[in-house]
């Protein structure tokens, strides 16, 4: 996991260097054109333009190679590393040629080698960076030597300097000394900074991974404990139900009352444990099985589940569905559960004879599902906490004693598992509108995932 992300980063940086190379090619051509046409500097233009073209062709080839080695399910990052090391060396050779055809030691662009050294320090290991620095010094040194010894021609930068300097021993020695020290100092400094940053980044990543593991261990623990509690609770509740419903004989009024209280509290506890189990399971599973399903049928199922709760409080349920396609992509059971949770909340926190409206509509590549009520609303100062696990707004606790504080966390978890989004608007004593949007198509879900 950690290795992958490092490799991916190297690939991204390799592409970044390629983008800079387009600029370098343009710069070589523009500088050649500008120097000869505007500044009257005598340059051997043809080889320089050719180098510009070569740079473009070579860059295109490198990009194709990078794409070739990283496409498919198993990218070959080893090859990417080799390409990165090769391209820095190749860039140094090209820069040496540019300098050779444009005045050699007389060209002030000699210090552009420094940029390559910074890039090498970021992309390569410390040793590799120093090797590249040595290579740069050798290239530049041999170019100076060969020009000095006239093994290769020297193209004097007439118009920029008054006298050719390629045989001025003292000037050559001074410039070369400065060049070598500058190159090695830059590599030393840039590598130190880069390695410190790499170490810090690895530290953060390891800490993150550790936190994720600890969170998972905690979730597994919660899952095990709640599962055990649920087993006992189920047995208690099943037995209580039998007695309360007088299936095991008659009860006197006081016994009936006490048992009903026990039954009610057990039901609340059972609902809480079920919700916690559900949320923890979802968090641990992370991924859900997705398929195409009918939104209309899912909404109808959700509405029928909460119908009796609504009619018990004379709350009118309004359904407004306006979607182009009834089919959506996701985990049907979870989506139905999310809708049920929102509807249950709306009904629970809406006073008698209120209205709960369920809307479904298209919103670009998403399907939006919205539940609006005429209920107690959420106090302004508590609105930023409503998706927190176990949180219940103060007015909600006063209005309805029973509640797990997990309903909206579950809905949020379901929506996030679908790469969707969730939000709400609420005004105290007026009502609440909670909506979520799910990607209508699997492709959208994939791209969002990235």
């Amino acid at each position, binding site marked *: 996991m950690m290795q992958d992300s490092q490799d991916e980063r190297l690939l991204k940086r390799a592409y970044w260097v390629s983008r800079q190379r387009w600029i370098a090619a343009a710069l070589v051509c523009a500088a050649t054109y500008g120097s000869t046409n505007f500044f009257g500097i005598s340059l051997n233009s043809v080889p320089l333009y050719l180098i510009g073209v070569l740079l473009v062709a070579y860059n295109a080839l490198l990009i194709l190679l990078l794409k070739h080695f990283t496409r498919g399910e198993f990218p070959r990052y080893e090859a990417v590393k080799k390409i990165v090391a090769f391209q820095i060396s190749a860039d140094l050779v090209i820069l040496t040629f540019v300098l050779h055809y444009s005045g050699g030691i007389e060209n002030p662009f000699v210090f552009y080698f420094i940029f390559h050294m910074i890039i090498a320090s970021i992309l390569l290991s410390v040793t590799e960076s120093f090797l590249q620095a040595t290579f740069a010094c050798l290239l530049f040194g041999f170019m100076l030597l060969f020009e000095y010894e006239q093994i290769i021609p020297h193209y004097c930068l007439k118009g920029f300097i008054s006298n050719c300097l390629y045989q001025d021993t003292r000037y050559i020695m001074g410039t070369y000394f400065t060049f070598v020290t500058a190159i090695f100092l830059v590599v030393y400094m840039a590598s130190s900074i880069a390695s410190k940053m790499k170490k810090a980044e690895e530290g953060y990543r390891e800490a993150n991974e550790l936190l994720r593991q600890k969170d998972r261990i905690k979730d597994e623990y919660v899952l095990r404990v709640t599962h055990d509690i*649920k*087993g006992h*609770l*189920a*047995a*208690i*509740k*099943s*037995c209580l*139900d*039998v007695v309360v*419903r007088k*299936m*095991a004989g008659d009860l006197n009024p006081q016994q009936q009352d006490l048992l009903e209280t026990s039954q009610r509290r057990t039901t609340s506890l*059972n609902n809480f444990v*079920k919700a916690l*189990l*559900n949320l923890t*399971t*979802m968090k641990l*599973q992370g991924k*859900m*099985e997705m398929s195409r399903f009918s939104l209309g049928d899912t909404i109808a199922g959700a509405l029928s589940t909460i119908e009796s709760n609504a009619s018990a409080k004379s709350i009118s349920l309004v359904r407004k569905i306006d979607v182009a396609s009834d089919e959506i992509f996701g985990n*049907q*059971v979870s989506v139905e559960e999310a809708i049920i949770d929102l509807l249950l909340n709306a009904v629970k926190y809406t006073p008698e004879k209120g209205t709960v409206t369920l809307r479904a509509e298209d919103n670009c590549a998403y399907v939006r599902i919205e539940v609006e009520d005429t209920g107690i609303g959420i106090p302004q100062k508590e609105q930023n906490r409503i998706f927190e696990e176990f949180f219940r707004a103060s007015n909600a606790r006063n209005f309805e004693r029973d509640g797990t504080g997990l309903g909206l966390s579950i809905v949020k978890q379901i929506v996030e598992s679908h790469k969707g989004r969730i939000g709400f608007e609420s005004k105290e004593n007026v009502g609440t509108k909670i909506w979520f949007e799910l990607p209508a198509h699997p492709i959208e879900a994939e791209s969002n995932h990235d």
Partner: protein
Amino acid sequence: MVEAKVLIVDDDQDVSKAIKAILNSEGYVVSCAGGSEEGMKMLESQQPDIVILDVMMSTSSEGFDMARVLRKNSRYKNIPILMLTAIKQKTGFDFKPSAGDPEWLPVDEFLDKPIEPDLLLAKVKALLEKTDE
């Protein structure tokens, strides 16, 4: 009052007791087994009209395993099976009988714990009526 015979196979005897009381109140004749081995023996002796089976007993799939054995046995394959499980919570999938693979999950109905008396009675009644047809 009906007199159909019901076999409950569940290692949680408290749950079995509650189910038994609910079913007894409607006149069913109920026997309980604490595991699949005992359950298989009681199948032989009691000849039940329906089996209520818990999924997780000594192993997490003991109920499933027993259901598969029943379906492969020519004498028992037509006995309806009501499985006690919150299947969705355990697997993340919702196996409706219609959607389930009869080979993999050969049961007729599911019921979540804790048992809702009305739901239990309705499901048992429906399964027995279906078998009568």
